[in-house]
C-alpha cells in the first residue's frame, strides 16, 4: 500500500512531533508473474523505462548517501528534542522488514529520510495535533490535499502520572496520495489503528496505575500546589512512550504492527481479472513443445550419462526429421538449418511477386486446401524459406513440413515436402475456383498500401476467423455427430458452403489443438443442454 504510517506526539515542550514513521518501499519493477506468464515484450520495455526512472530516483535518496542527506535534512536539532519527542535512540538505524513474496520493504525511522516526505509527514503531524482534531480530541479524522497528501488521523491520550492532566496526547496517522483508496480503507484502518491505540493505552494504564499506587500524584500535587509547574517539567515532563508503557521493545513492536497494517491494508481488497483464451496456434505450439520435452525426457532417461542439452530443431520440422529416413548427411544438414542467410523469400508478397500472381494463387490454393506441396530444388535454403513463408497461411496445427528429403513422402505425412530435383514423384495429378480465404489473402497481398506487418495481422485475422468456423464445424460434426442436412445448413450459416471452403474447413480441422478437442469431447458434450431448452 502506498502509504506512510506515523505516530505523532504533542510534546508539552516542543509541540507536535513525529515520533516514529513507517514507510513502504516497492520494487521498482513489477515482478514477472512466473515464467510462463511474463508480460509481453512491449510491456516489459515500458516497465523497464519506468524502472530506470524509479531506481534512479531511489538512489537519489538511498541511505547509502544518507550521510549528506542527514546533514542537510530539515530534522529537528538534537537540542530541540526531549525524551518525549524521541523514539529511536540517537544513532539507531531504524527498522526494516522484508516481504519477500512481494519484494516490498517496510522501513521505520523517526522521520522519513526523503526531504519531501519529511515535510509531508511533518505537516500531517502538525495538522493532526493542532487544527484537524476530532471532537473530544480522541478519534479519527480525515484531511489533506493533493499537494501534501491525504491523511487519516486518529488522536488519543496516553496516561502519564507525571504529565499535566495525567495524560499525553498522541496521534497515529496514515498518509496517502490516493484519496479514494484511503477513504475506502477507512473502516479497516480505523479498526486496526484503534486496536493499536487500545493496547498502547492499556499498557500505559497499567504503568499509570502502578505509579499511582506507589505514589499518588494527585495528592502530592495538591500538597505542593504552589510549586511552579515549570519546575516539575524540568524533571519529568519529557517521558518517552517507552517508559509510559514500560515496554522496551515498543518501537520494534510498532514497526512490526505498522508494517503489518500496511501489508494487510494493501492486500485487503483483491480483484480477479480475466484474460482471453489463447489462440489455437498458441495451443498447438505449446502442445508440440510439450511433446518435444517429453521426448527429450525419455531421451534423458535412456541416456542419463549424456549431457542434458540436446539441441532440438525448432517446431515440427524437428520431429519430422527424426522420422525422416534420409541419409544422415542431409538430415544433419536439415537439422542444423538456421536462417543464416537472408531468407530467399522475404514474405508472401515477395513470393507472389516472384512467382507471378496466377502461379502463386494456384500454389496458395493447394496450401490452403491441405494438398501436398512439393518443392523441388537443389537449394535447400530456398525450399526452407519458401515453406517458412507458405506456412503462415495455415494454422500451426495444419503444418507438417519435411523440409528436404531424398525420396518422396506420402501426403499424410507432410503437406510441405522439399525434394531434390532427381527424386521421382509418383503420379499425382493436381486439380484446381478457390476458398474465400484465398481471395482475401490475395487481396491483401495485392494491395500495396498494406505493409508486411499489416498483411501479417491480416493473416492472423483471417486464420482466426476461419479457425472459429472450424471449431463450430468440429463441434457439430465430430463431437455431436449431427446429420448431414444440418451440416449443410451450418455451413451456409458459416458462409462456407462452397465446396472449396468445406474442403478447407475439413483440412483445417486436423489442425485443432488437442486441448481444445479434448475439452469439447469431455465437458461441453451435454446432450441435455439442448434438450432442456424450451
Amino acid at each position, binding site marked *: 500500500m*502506498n502509504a506512510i504510517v506515523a505516530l505523532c506526539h504533542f510534546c508539552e515542550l516542543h509541540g507536535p512531533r513525529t515520533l516514529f514513521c513507517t514507510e*513502504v518501499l*516497492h520494487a521498482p519493477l*513489477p515482478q514477472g508473474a*512466473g515464467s510462463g*506468464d511474463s508480460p*509481453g*515484450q512491449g*510491456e516489459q520495455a515500458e*516497465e523497464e523505462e*519506468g524502472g530506470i526512472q524509479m531506481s534512479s*530516483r*531511489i538512489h537519489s535518496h*538511498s541511505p*547509502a548517501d544518507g550521510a549528506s542527506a542527514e546533514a542537510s535534512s530539515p530534522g529537528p536539532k538534537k537540542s530541540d528534542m526531549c525524551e518525549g519527542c524521541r523514539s529511536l535512540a540517537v544513532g539507531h*538505524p531504524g*527498522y*526494516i522488514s522484508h516481504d*519477500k*513474496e512481494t519484494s516490498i520493504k517496510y*522501513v521505520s525511522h523517526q522521520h522519513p529520510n526523503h526531504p519531501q516526505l519529511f515535510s509531508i509527514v511533518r505537516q500531517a503531524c502538525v495538522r493532526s495535533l493542532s487544527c484537524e482534531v476530532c471532537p473530544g480530541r480522541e478519534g479519527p479524522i480525515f484531511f489533506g490535499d493533493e499537494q501534501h*497528501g491525504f491523511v487519516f488521523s486518529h488522536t488519543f491520550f496516553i496516561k502519564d502520572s507525571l504529565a499535566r492532566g495525567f495524560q499525553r496526547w498522541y496521534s497515529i496517522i496514515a498518509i496517502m*496520495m*490516493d484519496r*479514494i*483508496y484511503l477513504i475506502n480503507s477507512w473502516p479497516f484502518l480505523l*479498526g486496526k489503528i484503534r486496536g493499536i491505540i487500545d493496547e498502547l493505552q*492499556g499498557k500505559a494504564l*497499567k504503568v499509570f496505575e502502578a505509579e499511582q499506587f506507589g505514589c499518588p500524584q494527585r495528592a502530592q500535587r495538591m500538597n505542593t500546589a504552589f510549586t511552579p509547574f515549570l519546575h516539575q517539567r524540568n524533571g519529568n515532563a519529557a517521558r518517552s512512550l517507552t517508559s509510559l*508503557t514500560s*515496554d522496551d*521493545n515498543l518501537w520494534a513492536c510498532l514497526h*512490526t*504492527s505498522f*508494517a*503489518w497494517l500496511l*501489508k*494487510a491494508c494493501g*492486500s485487503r481488497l*483483491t480483484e*480477479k*481479472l*480475466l*484474460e*482471453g*483464451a*489463447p489462440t489455437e496456434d498458441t495451443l498447438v505450439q505449446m502442445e508440440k513443445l510439450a511433446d518435444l520435452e517429453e521426448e527429450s525426457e525419455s531421451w534423458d532417461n535412456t541416456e542419463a550419462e549424456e549431457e542434458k542439452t540436446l539441441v532440438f530443431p525448432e517446431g515440427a520440422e524437428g520431429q519430422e526429421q527424426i522420422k525422416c529416413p534420409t541419409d544422415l548427411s542431409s538430415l544433419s544438414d536439415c537439422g542444423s538449418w538456421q536462417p543464416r542467410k537472408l531468407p530467399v523469400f522475404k514474405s508472401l508478397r515477395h513470393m507472389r511477386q516472384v512467382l507471378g500472381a496466377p502461379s502463386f494463387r494456384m500454389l496458395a490454393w493447394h496450401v490452403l486446401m491441405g494438398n501436398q506441396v512439393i518443392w523441388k530444388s537443389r537449394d535447400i535454403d530456398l525450399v526452407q524459406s519458401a515453406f517458412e513463408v507458405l506456412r503462415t497461411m495455415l494454422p500451426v496445427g495444419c503444418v507438417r513440413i519435411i523440409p528436404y528429403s531424398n525420396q518422396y513422402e506420402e501426403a499424410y505425412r507432410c503437406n510441405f515436402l522439399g525434394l531434390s530435383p532427381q527424386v521421382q514423384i509418383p503420379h499425382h495429378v493436381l486439380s484446381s475456383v478457390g476458398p474465400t480465404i484465398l481471395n482475401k489473402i490475395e487481396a491483401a497481398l495485392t494491395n500495396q498500401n*498494406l505493409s508486411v506487418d499489416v498483411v501479417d*495481422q491480416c493473416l492472423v*485475422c483471417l486464420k*482466426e*476467423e476461419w479457425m*472459429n468456423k472450424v471449431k463450430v464445424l468440429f463441434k457439430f460434426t465430430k463431437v455431436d455427430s449431427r446429420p448431414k442436412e444440418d451440416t449443410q445448413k*451450418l455451413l451456409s*450459416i458459416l458462409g462456407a458452403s462452397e465446396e472449396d471452403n468445406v474442403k478447407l474447413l475439413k483440412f483445417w480441422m486436423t489442425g485443432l489443438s488437442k486441448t481444445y478437442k479434448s475439452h469439447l469431447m469431455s*465437458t*461441453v*458434450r451435454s446432450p441435455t*443442454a439442448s434438450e432442456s*431448452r424450451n
Partner: protein
Amino acid sequence: MPSRGQNEDRDSGIARSASLSSLLITPFPSPSSSTSSSSSYQRRWLRSQTTSLENGIIPRRSTDETFSLAEETCSSNPAIVRRKKIAISIIFSLCEKEEAQRNFQDFFFSHFPLFESHMNRLKSAVEKAMISCRKIAESSHRVQFYISRLMEALGEFRGTIWNLYSVPRIAEPVWLTMMSSTLEKTQLCQRFLKEFTLLIEQINKNQFFAALLTAVLTYHLAWVPTVMPVDHPPIKAFSEKRTSQSVNMLAKTHPYNPLWAQLGDLYGAIGSPVRLTRTVVVGKQKDLVQRILYVLTYFLRCSELQENQLTWSGNHGEGDQVLNGSKITTALEKGEVEESEYVVVTVRNEPALIPPVLPFMIERRNPGPMGSAGTPEGTAITDLCPSLDKEESRRPEQSSEACSMGFQEPALGSSWQHQGTFCGDKGCEKEAPRDGCLRLSSSEVLGAGLEVSQQTVHEELKGEMSTKLSERSAAWPCPDRRAREKAALERVTFQIGSSVSPESDLEGRAQKMEEQLKACRQCPELAGSPWAQPRATADVAQDQHVSGCSFKPGFRKNTCCPQNQSSERDKDRLDRCFAEDRGIRTNVVAGVAGQLSQSADSSVSSDAAAGTGESTLEKTKGLCLNDAEGPLLEPVPNRCVQQDSGFSVAADVPCGDADRKVDFRMEGDIPRNESSDSALGDSDDDTCASAAPSLGHRSDRTEESLEVELPLPRSQSFSNQSVRNFGRSLLAGYCPTYMPDLVLHGTSNDEKLKQCLMADLLHTVHHPVLDEPIAEAVCIVADTEKWSVQVVTSQRKVADGVKLGQDVLVSSQVSSLLQAILQLYKLHFPADFCVMHLEDRLQEMYFKSKMLSEYLRGHTRVHVKELGVVLGIESNDLPLLTAIASTHSPYVAQILL
C-alpha cells in the same frame, strides 16, 4: 447490410473522436510499444505509480477545494474579491439497526468517490446560488432566492444519494456471476443465451439490438482485455478463462486500489482518450427493459473483488470462524484424566500490536530451536510421564498469564503451547518407534536449521533457519519459556560474526555431520528419542488441533515410547545429543535424498526438506489429515488450515521464507496473499537474502544495511466474496427514474433524462469520479419506445431539440455476430459452446482492431474511407474497431485526427 439513420454522417464515430483534440489529454499515455500488454494492466500500474509516496510525491492536479464566489466579470483582480469562507457539511443520520448502519457505512466508504462527486455538485450549486443572488437588489428577496436554491440543491443531493443507495440492482450480473461461480455455469449460460437470442429475434428487426450492442462494445471497453489472447494454456476447462496472473502479481508487489480499478473498468474508461460511459435503457415495457439490462451485463465487464482478512496470530483450525477479527477456535484437548478429552472453545481477538521479533532475541535464541525445544524437555524429563497431562491442562491458563511482556495475546500463548509444551512432554511420551518417518520429516526441518546453527557457526545462518528462529522467537514472550531458555544459553557457545570462508565451513560441517552420524549410530536409542520429536509432535498436535478429533485415534495407536525413559539420563549428554541428533536427522534424511554432502549452506536445509518430504510422504499421509498437498510435514505451528470452499485460507510467508511455504490450500478460491512457491524450497536465493539480515545482514546488505531487520509475522488470508463493490452496485435494474451514477440502468421514460443528462455529463467531466482527468463523458441511451440508440456526449451539444445525441452506426461485425449466435442456438448447439463461440467472435474483433492499428502505425494521416477499402473492414465497423484499438494502441486516435 445493416444501416440505420441514413442522414447521419457515416464516419461520425471516428470523426467525432478525431476532431476533438481535447480528447487526447490522457494523463499518462501508455506507450505505443505495448503490443501485448493490456490496458487494464497499464492503468493499474500507472495508478500505483502516480499515487506512490516512496520517492516523494508526484505533483498532481490540484482540486479546487475552496468555493469560488466571484463572478467572471470581477474575478480578474483577486484583491478586490472579498474572501468569504463557506463550508458545507452533510450529516447522515443512520437508522438504529446496527446492521443497517454497518451496511450504509460500508456503502459509504466503498462508494466514496460517488458521494464526493455529489458533494461537488452541491458545492457548485451553492456557488451558483450565491453568485446569482447578488443580482437581486432587495435583501429579503435575495435571501429567499438563495435559500430556495440551496434547499433545491440539497434536495437533489439527498434524492440522489437515497436513490443510489436504494435503487434495485441486477441480482446476478451475467459476467460477474459466471466469473465467480463455476458450479452453475451451464445453467447460467443457458439462461443468458435464451435471453440473448430472444432479444436478437425480437428486437433486432430494425437493428435496434445490434445498434445497442455496437454502442456498448464501443464505449464500455473493459471487455477487450478479457478476450486478448494469452500465450499460456488455460488452467482448467477450456471455456474458463484464466485470471490474469500479471495483474495479480502487480497487485501484490505494487498495491493499487482495486475498487478504483473496477470502477474504471465498468465505466469503460480504459481506452485512449479516456471516456466515461454509462448506459440507460428507456422503455415502458419493464419486462423487456429488464431483459435487455440482463443481457448487457454480460458485455459490461469488470473485475470481481474479494475481501481478504489477513491474520498473523496463529493457526486457524478447520472450521475456525473469523468474526469481526476475532477468531473462534475449537480444539480438542486432552483431559486430566487419562483418556478423557474435552473441547476448548477459544474466542480470541487478534492483538493489534504485533510483538516484534527482535534481532537480539534471535541472537540469543540462536540456540533457539534447541533451547526452546530442548530445555523444556530437559525439565520435562524429570517429571515426564506424570506431568504430561497436567502440563497440558494447565496450558490455557499458562498461556493467558504468559504474557509477561505485556502482550495480551492468548493467541501467542496458544501457538506457543503447540510449539513448546507439546513438544516437551507429549512428544516424548508418545513417540512410537515406527513413527520414524514422521519424526524424520519434521525433526529434519528443525534439524537442518539446528545443524546449521549449532554445528556450523552462526554467521552463515540462513534461510529457513532465521525464519524458524524468528518464528520461535515470536513466541518468546512466555516468561517461563525465557527462564528455561537460560539453561540452554549457558551451555551453548556462540560465535556470531566469526566469519569463516564458506568452503572450509562446508567441509567442516560435513565432517561434523559425519561425526554426528557416527555418534548417533552409537546411541541408537537416541536416534528416535525425544530430541527428534518435538517438532513432529508439535505438528501432530497441531494437526490434531486443526482437524478436531479426527486425528486422535491414529495418534493414540502410536503412543508407545520405549526409549523415552532413557531421557532420565544425564542431562548434559542429552543436551548434547539433542543437538547432534538434529544433525543426524538431517544427515539421514539428506542421505535419502542423496545430496546432502555436496549441498551448500542454505540448501542443506532445503534439500533435506525435499528429501524428507518425498520420502515420508506416504507414511505421513495418515497423520497429516489436512495437508493433502503438502509433502513436507508442516514445520511451523502458525500454519494455515483447511476450510470449506466458500471461505478460503492460505498461509502466507511474508518474512522471506519462500521455500517454506507449505500449501495447505485445497480447493476453494485462491487468495492472493499466498505464495505459490513449492514447499520443497528451491528458492535458495530468496531465503538467503531474506534470512541473512537477522544475523549477517551487515555483511550481506551493503546498500541498505542501516536498518535493523525485523521479520514480519507470517500471515494467513481469509477471503470472502461478499464485499461491497461497484460491480454489484452500479449495474442496476429498472428504476423509477433516470439516475446519474449508474453504469447501467433502465427507466420508464426519458423526461428526467432529457432534463439532467447534459448537466450530468458535464459534471462528470469536471469532477471525474476516477480521480484522474477524463476526456469525455458519454451516455448511451437506448429507447425501446422509439427503437433508437443514441450516444450523448459531453463534447457536443446537440442543437436539435428532439434528439438527445447521435444515432449509433451499426457495426456489421456486431450484426453478423448476433446472427451467428442466433443460428447456432437454433441449430441446438449447447449454450456453453455458443458462449465460447461468442467469445471467439469478440476475439476476432480484437484481432481486426490489431490489424487496424498496425495499418495506422505507418500513417500519420488516414482517410476513413481508405481504411475500409484497404483493410476490407466495413466503414460501419470503424468506430468500434478504432475504440477497441485505442485500448491497446493509444496512438490510433491521434492518427485519425
